[in-house]
């Protein structure tokens, strides 16, 4: 596939060894792109794994090292935070399922390497929500918002309760009962997700099945409105796919599961753009099969136009004249996907009204 824009970062993610003859100006741009895409640590990990790290010139190596040191501390605080959540939810009989970054860490997935994030997400059966919320409040978490509109917005339409913040540690926890909003027409049956979960460790701590982890990552990325982290999330998918593809039957299970969970379109995007941008080894037959999920050649070409730009590192050097427009369209699209239009217009109006009123206070 022809890429509209080039980026050193993309080249290096496909083949880390291409830095071997980089001069300092190329390193300069590579570090900048990686920082903007929030993958400096992942880049450092890649160089360490390929035994390239020590040969990196001093200046760029310092930046990778500095980010890597930060990530070591982040990992310990993640372990501690998970421990605290486990402890607070000890009285709950239902499984506690960690999602996204925390799940990659718990399952020791490659996608967990060098991945920094601010919020922890968990999934619990919907019927357990009140009980979980009470247990968390008892453990020191508090809801972030008392605004009645926000409360109603979350409780009626969303797949999660309003974010909770720990009073002492100031960490944020998102409690979900599904991976997509109830209002979204591709919202999967959460019972099917729960049926395949995998336990990690001794506690009541679980993660989604490998295929479901991929589908969740895909559906999250391709419903997302702001793709500042788009390249990082695409790299997560690349790493997950490569890791799980070693299991026999992986690809057929993945396609089947996408069917069951109504996630065929996000899977199409995930396979198409990881393959196009990060050269992820997806079998041709699987690519062909998934292409049928998004009907219409014009539509597919239009999506290429959007995503081949918006999924590149969010740095000025990776933009062309259409990138801003593409990102804007994706923002509008993400809201349309999550809500029916009769809910969307009032919601967006309210959001923009707030934006104006908050500006006035400065």
């Amino acid at each position: 596939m022809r890429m509209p824009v080039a980026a050193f970062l993309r080249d290096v993610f496909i083949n880390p060894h291409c830095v071997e003859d980089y001069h300092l100006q190329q390193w300069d741009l590579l570090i900048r792109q990686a920082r903007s895409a929030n993958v400096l640590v992942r880049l450092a990990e890649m160089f360490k794994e390929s035994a390239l790290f020590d040969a990196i010139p001093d200046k760029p190596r310092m930046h990778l090292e500095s980010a890597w040191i930060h990530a070591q501390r982040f990992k310990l605080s993640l372990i501690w935070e998970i421990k605290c959540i486990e402890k607070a939810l000890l009285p709950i009989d239902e499984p506690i399922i960690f999602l996204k970054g925390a799940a990659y860490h718990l399952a020791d997935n490659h996608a967990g390497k060098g991945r920094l994030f601010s919020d922890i997400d968990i999934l619990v059966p919907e019927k357990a929500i009140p009980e979980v919320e009470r247990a968390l409040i008892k453990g020191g978490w508090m809801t972030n918002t008392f605004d009645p509109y926000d409360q109603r917005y979350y409780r009626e339409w969303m797949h999660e309760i309003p974010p909770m913040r720990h009073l002492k540690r100031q960490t944020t926890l998102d409690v979900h009962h599904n991976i997509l909003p109830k209002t979204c027409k591709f919202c999967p049956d959460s019972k099917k997700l729960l049926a395949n979960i995998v336990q990690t460790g001794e506690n009541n701590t679980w993660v989604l099945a490998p295929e479901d982890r991929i589908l969740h990552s895909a559906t999250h990325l391709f419903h997302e409105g702001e793709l500042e982290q788009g390249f990082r999330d695409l790299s997560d998918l690349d790493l997950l796919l490569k890791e799980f593809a070693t299991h026999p039957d992986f690809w057929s299970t993945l396609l089947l599961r996408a069917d069951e969970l109504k996630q065929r379109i996000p899977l199409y995007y995930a396979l198409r753009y990881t393959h196009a941008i990060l050269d992820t080894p997806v079998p041709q037959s699987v690519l062909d099969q998934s292409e049928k999920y998004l009907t219409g050649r014009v539509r597919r070409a239009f999506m290429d136009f959007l995503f081949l730009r918006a999924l590149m590192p969010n740095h000025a050097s990776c933009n062309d004249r259409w990138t801003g427009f593409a990102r804007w369209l994706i923002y509008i699209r993400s809201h349309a996907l999550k809500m029916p239009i009769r809910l969307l217009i009032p919601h967006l109006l309210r959001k923009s009204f707030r934006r104006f009123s908050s500006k006035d206070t400065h």
Partner: protein
Amino acid sequence: MKLSSLSTHTLKQSLGNHLGIKLKIGGFHICLTSSIDNVTQHLINLYGDFELLHDDDFIDFHVELNAPSLARRLFRPQVSFSFDGHVPFKPLPYDQAAAMFEWGLNWCIANHSNQYLIIHAAVVERNGQAFIFPGTPGSGKSTLCAALVLSGWRLLSDEMTLISTVDGMVHPVPRPISLKNQSIDVIHHFSDQAFIGQVVKDTAKGTVGHLRPPNASIEQSAMPAKPTKLIFPKYKEASETQLLELSKGKSMMRAAEDCFNYNVLGSQGFDVLGNLIDQCDCYTFEYSQLTEAIQLFTQLTD
């Protein structure tokens, strides 16, 4: 080549186009773009002795200071600091552009240099001994630092002490010394060699001016120094000059509070700070007479 060798016209032109001005500040390479006259003037006043970098050098921090939008420019002029497209702070009034450059650069270094333990402290050196003065705003650390530097001490840093996690040495990053409110006059009176750039009123920190760092300190900025004293200063009106020993444990806890990245470094931060405490004599220091303070510290290094 030094920045002072550029004509005002060339400097302004380079700052204004996207290539910017590439400066070596201590161990850091900075590329600055800005079309704000205040910023040009700030560089001319205070950064004349700093070396310019070559075009093919690696840049640590690409920073920009410009008005956030056209509407803002016309209506209520403001300046925004950007680190390679990322805007970490809210815009400030236009006339604070130069101060914002200094604060922005502090932020860049403090958040992206975990090869050092970074203490919010002034640090100066004489006869091979580096004295570290941690302190919150109002403690008088910058005034003390300025007066020591004007008395012949080498400036390592006025705002952030960089302790190498490898060898425990202080790595210099000499930059203009930020003086606030009354200390601007105090330093003017202290020495007629003091050159203070533009003075800006009504910033978040009150009235702010910057003292030009001595050329000798800039020229020696590649030379690390061994920390020997950790002194927590406190300016107190009409107080006697008083240097009191502070226990190592308490010093450790206080210094940890004053670090920018102690928490980020984790166990390594604990080790590096612990080693620093081991090798330094630790004190609290109360003063009101600057000359007495300088005399005392100079005696300690004779």
